[in-house]
């Protein structure tokens, strides 16, 4: 039996797991996929929002601003790529210019620091590729960009290093409470029991909430299509560029990524399918049209991939972070849509504090606050790199040529805590396969490494777990030549 079971190993579940790992408690994270960061956390804008967008006084606003504040320390402790590049909200219609003032005032009320309203000229001087239609902009220097994969992975790794258990490929199917007040979670991998359950299940959070409560909540998967552009286009803008928000969210944004690509998106389409991450031609066309309204000469020919993510939109557009009224010891962390990525450390802190108090948890003596990321040899001098290769020759073997990722980094990704088990797992940890050839060159090589290091047949190596195998069988029959 566990003290706490967290459902979901996305950024929210992982942030909570890390906070709980500070205390003497048996904590387990149940994740239906084969890795952390498989749902909403892996497909979003990767923005650390300043916090001027959420409604004044809302939990969303509070979590956003607090999460933003916490990000520097978190990035330093956990070795996460994070840059405060600042954001601009541009206004492209003169008659809506006062919208910038409204945003500014909301930001001030929310506690966002350093904002300024820019004239057209100031905005253009800071960001020459803004559309000629731009009439003015709100500038928020505290906005940043992060690698969402590494943020998620790092928090989970650190939690695991501090004793939190992670159970992958474990899908919760039913939740019941026994007479002793213990939660029973039936899964495809047997039953798990716990005193407390934290529901951090993203687009599925309403499903689990509604299993235990008569006061139903409703979450809509809201799909957003994105295009990711080549690093050659990464300097097209140097800030995160939003347009004034509309009813359907923040509109599209154009921003450099922390790794130097350019990302454009997302659209906002409500769907029924909680796994409906398919892009559509209409969605991509829509986001290109919208993006062109705020930024000119967007080099859309440099798109290297497009993808879609689902936000967990709760009907009241507010984070639900509380013990369920009619289900004591069941904590909802639901409706975590944008600015969820930004908020995750604050949510972790809040839920950690809540459970510490409720469960009278005591801090561990030997809690490890820091986590070392996978070494990036590109940050080394040639002498340092040679010393590394001499010690560990795999660092001299480049596997992904687009991103210059060596075998050494891939081996580290596979063998570290909560290591990679699939091509996508390797990709999100090392960036191998994330470049402009989109794994055409490196995928057979990474498959080979996974096959060798995990001791599994090549036919069992997957793209992302489950049935996503890559090759089906050997040519010439199972044994070959014995047909």
């Amino acid at each position, binding site marked *: 039996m566990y003290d706490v079971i967290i459902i979901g190993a996305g950024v929210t579940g992982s942030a909570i797991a890390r906070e709980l790992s500070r205390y003497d408690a048996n904590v387990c994270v149940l994740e239906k996929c084969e890795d952390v960061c498989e749902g909403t956390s892996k497909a979003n804008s990767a923005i650390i929002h300043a916090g001027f967008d959420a409604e004044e006084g809302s939990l969303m606003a509070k979590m956003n601003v607090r999460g933003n504040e916490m990000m520097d320390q978190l990035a330093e402790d956990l070795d996460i790529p994070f840059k405060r590049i600042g954001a601009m909200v541009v206004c492209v219609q003169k008659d809506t210019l006062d919208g910038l003032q409204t945003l500014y005032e909301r930001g001030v009320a929310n506690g966002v620091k350093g904002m300024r309203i820019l004239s057209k000229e100031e905005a253009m001087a800071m960001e020459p590729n803004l559309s000629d239609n731009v009439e003015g902009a709100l500038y928020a220097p505290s906005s940043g960009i992060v690698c969402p994969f590494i943020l998620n992975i790092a928090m989970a790794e650190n939690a695991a290093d501090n004793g939190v258990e992670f159970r992958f490929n474990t899908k919760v199917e039913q939740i019941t409470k026994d007479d002793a007040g213990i939660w029973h979670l039936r899964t495809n991998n047997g039953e798990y029991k716990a005193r407390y359950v934290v529901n951090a299940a993203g687009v599925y959070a309403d499903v689990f909430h509604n299993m235990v409560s008569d006061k139903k909540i409703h979450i809509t998967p809201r799909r957003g299509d994105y295009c990711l552009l080549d690093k050659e286009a990464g300097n097209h803008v140097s800030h995160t560029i939003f347009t004034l928000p509309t009813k359907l969210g923040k509109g599209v944004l154009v921003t450099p990524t922390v790794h130097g690509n350019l990302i454009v998106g997302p659209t906002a389409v409500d769907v029924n399918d909680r796994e409906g991450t398919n892009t559509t031609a209409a969605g991509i066309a829509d986001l290109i049209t919208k993006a062109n309204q705020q930024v000119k000469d967007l080099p859309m020919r440099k798109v*290297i991939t497009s993808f879609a993510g689902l936000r967990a939109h709760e009907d009241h557009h507010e984070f639900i972070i509380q013990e369920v009224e009619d289900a004591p010891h069941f904590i909802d962390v639901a409706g975590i849509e944008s600015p969820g990525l930004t908020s995750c450390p604050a949510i972790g802190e809040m839920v950690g504090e809540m459970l510490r108090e409720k469960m009278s948890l005591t801090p561990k003596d030997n809690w490890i606050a820091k986590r070392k990321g996978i070494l990036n040899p590109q940050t080394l001098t*040639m002498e340092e790199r040679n010393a590394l290769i001499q010690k560990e020759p795999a660092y001299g073997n480049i596997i992904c*040529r687009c991103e*210059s990722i060596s075998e050494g980094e891939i081996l580290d990704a596979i063998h570290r805590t909560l290591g990679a088990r699939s091509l996508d797992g390797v990709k999100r940890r090392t960036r191998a396969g994330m470049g402009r050839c989109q794994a055409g060159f490196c995928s*057979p090589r990474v498959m080979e490494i996974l096959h060798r290091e995990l001791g599994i047949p090549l036919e069992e190596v997957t*793209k992302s777990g489950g049935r996503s195998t890559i*090759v089906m069988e050997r040519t010439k029959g199972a044994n070959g030549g014995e047909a």
Partner: protein
Amino acid sequence: MIPYDIVIIGGGPAGLAAAVSARKNGIDKILILERDRELGGILNQCIHNGFGLHTFKEELTGPEYAQRFIDQVLEMGIEYKLNTMVMDISPERVVTAMSREDGMYQIQAGAVILAMGCRERPRGALNIPGYRPAGIFSAGTAQRLVNIEGYMPGREVVILGSGDIGLIMARRMTLEGAKVKVVAELMPYSGGLKRNIVQCLDDFNIPLKLSHTVVDIEGKEHITAVTIAQVDSHNKPIPGTEERYTCDTLLLSCGLIPENELSNKAGIRMNPVTNGPVVTESLETNIPGIFACGNVLHVHDLVDYVSEEAGRAGAAAARYVQAKGIIEHSDEVVKLIATDGVRYTVPVTIDLKNMADLQTVHFRVGNVYKNCYVSVYYNDKRMTHTRKKIMAPGEMEKIILQKKNLLKEEDLKTITIKIEAE
């Protein structure tokens, strides 16, 4: 820093032929840097026949064709390093390379020959809507898995794009027992060679649907089906023409892109049409002493032409090294202009002083032309007018210019190549 006369980036067909040619032209210290575990490049996985008719006057498979050049390289004692990735080339021709065995090191090259080849356009760049499951491969990746590693990606195959690798893989997968259901091609003509349509598709009754594209991909973990639709003249899908094909594999053969990351780092000027360097008659880039040949320069459809071009690059690099970098350039540089259906030319300039007696100019057309003329103008004067039964974007064309004719022309500034109806 280790000095070499000529460093060749890539040990595929272009790099091998360039090395052999440089040696024949008197260069001693040559080094080939190859990132794969063997020489030969992509030819090693091209196990089909049809290579070498021009070069060796016989029909060879890819590995056999490569071996002919590898044997010459070995006989000549030309140095090469395998499993070696070139990380950087500087404008001063300092080549930074890395391998397990040698670590990271730098070489000062007298001349550099770029022979990195090309790569396939990935799904992402095609913006195909739908899910992103396993089971989607560029045709060349599948070719490597099947032919080198000996694994089948799947049994029910749809192919998007009729590039040669896609056509070859249609036959290959069929021979290995898979069912290739359809090849869809966005353009109204095939991007591959005609002979491949006959012997890879027609022979096996595989339908080729021109002016069709994939409009949806189904399958959350592994691909389960694709939907194909006809497109209009603006390449937009026509509603109501959708057809769904169940499949476990989607192969993409939608174009090749020269692999010029290193060239860009070195500051080499690129031609936006070919995605390869802008080169002179000597196949020299805008950076003196850096030459380019093969698919990194422009995508070829015949390896024989790659070898021929690489031979010229090797000879030109040898001349550069022997002249210690002091090659006299005349004021008489003629610019080649590609227009009216001609998409590009390689080279783009010809120095009348340095040109050979015969200068090959390669080009591609932008559409299918039947019974048209290839016209060559010296300045504004039409000099040749050659009737062609058929020309297609998938097939590289060439003309040969004679130095003596160019010299005869007074004040020659431009040579224009265009397609004319009559």
